[in-house]
């Protein structure tokens, strides 16, 4: 069995205490919540920490609230809680559906959305949809709190903009306008998605109002936004629109070859799943 090397868990009861623990232990410590990514990496020996800072006891960073047009998710909220949350299901049904399909039921029961972002494993579902929705996170450190867009938070494979003494406390997701359609589709053969595509658009009489938002996740080092300005006002069902969207999506990514497939295969999948995301938007609007 992949037993763990000895470490000490420090249960923080406030964000300030967690920040102080990060300052004290530096690189010897990791923030611990669900542990689904962290403990696995430690068992495999690819990460080693003498101290884990358990943020689950911090009541102020748990649960889901809504203020005006923003849904605020506390950092210790699990995927299990999010897929069942009545407020989230009402305000962001596509996001709740995505959450219900993260990994498997056991990972969802323990793992958190914030942990998923902070770990920055590229083969993940939430980042693409969060980037498409314009979500941001609050990072709190010894010099106060700052907000960072999810698009800027994930800077590379397992790399984020989180500072050495910062704690990710909340994720804020703007609720899209009433008439906007949101879709997330993915292709997955193993435990993690090979390709995930998030799409948001408003359609009127079959045409895009403004340009659609498209973000491709899981396939590249970071979620990639697809350039769509010339699709503003285009007919969503027209063959030339579909070709242009699939082509733009394929061009936007530099897939990482791995067990789920090579570069060309994944690029092909990106085109296929971009069209499926588009189909879902059109079907929903109909």
């Amino acid at each position, binding site marked *: 069995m992949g037993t763990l090397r000895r*470490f000490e868990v420090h249960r923080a009861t406030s964000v300030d205490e967690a920040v102080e623990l990060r300052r004290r232990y530096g690189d010897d410590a990791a923030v611990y919540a669900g542990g689904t990514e962290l403990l696995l990496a430690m068992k495999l020996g690819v990460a080693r920490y003498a101290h884990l800072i358990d943020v689950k006891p911090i009541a102020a960073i748990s649960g889901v609230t809504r203020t005006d047009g923003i849904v605020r998710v506390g950092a210790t909220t699990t995927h299990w809680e999010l897929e069942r949350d009545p407020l989230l299901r009402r305000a962001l049904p596509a996001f709740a559906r995505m959450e219900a399909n993260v990994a498997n*039921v056991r990972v969802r029961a323990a793992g958190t959305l914030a942990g998923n972002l902070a770990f920055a494993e590229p083969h993940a579902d939430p980042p693409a949809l969060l980037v498409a929705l314009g979500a941001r996170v609050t990072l709190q450190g010894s010099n106060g709190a700052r907000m960072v867009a999810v698009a800027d938070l994930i800077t590379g494979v397992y790399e984020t903009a989180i500072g050495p003494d910062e704690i990710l406390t909340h994720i804020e997701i703007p609720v899209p306008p009433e008439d906007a359609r949101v879709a997330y589709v993915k292709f997955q053969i193993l435990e993690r998605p090979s390709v995930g595509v998030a799409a948001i658009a408003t359609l009127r009489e079959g045409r895009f109002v403004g340009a659609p938002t498209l973000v491709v996740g899981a396939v590249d080092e970071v979620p990639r936004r697809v350039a769509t300005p010339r699709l503003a006002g285009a007919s969503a069902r027209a063959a030339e629109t579909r070709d242009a969207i699939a082509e733009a999506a394929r061009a936007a990514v530099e897939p990482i070859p791995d067990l789920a497939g090579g570069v060309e295969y994944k690029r092909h999948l990106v085109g296929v799943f971009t069209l499926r995301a588009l189909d879902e938007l059109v079907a929903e609007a109909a």
Partner: protein
Amino acid sequence: MPAREIRFRLNGSERRAEVEDQVLLLELVRGLGLAGTKLSCDMQVCGACTVLLDGRPVSSCTTLAIEADGRAIETIEGLADGTALHPLQQAFIDKFAFQCGYCTPGMIVAAKALLDELPRPDRATVRRWMDGNICRCTGYETIVDAVVAASERMGGAK
């Protein structure tokens, strides 16, 4: 580092244990003699190590034992009432839902969490819930049959 004392309910009985922080929940329950919970993939993919923590299924291979402090752990050993099998256990036998049996404790414990939350799941829901439990013998159809049959016997039938 001194061990931490934790208190928990294990299959209905109040227990306490001294564990160091890095001890895994799987090591705790097997160390207490409950060998029904199996280690297999060791990476949260296969489900053989599934136990319930306050009713929610977790991979005990990647959960710290200290997380059980103040909570209820349920393992496969907690399902039967004396010699009377739980309806899920009986249904797995009746429907031939296992061959080697190594994945079965995790399958049954995962299915129990489903039926506790949703007593009348349709087949698609059972398949989706159980998609994180891997069996290399049966081909899954009989497993879905067993969960649906148990749901009917437990009074949750559609």
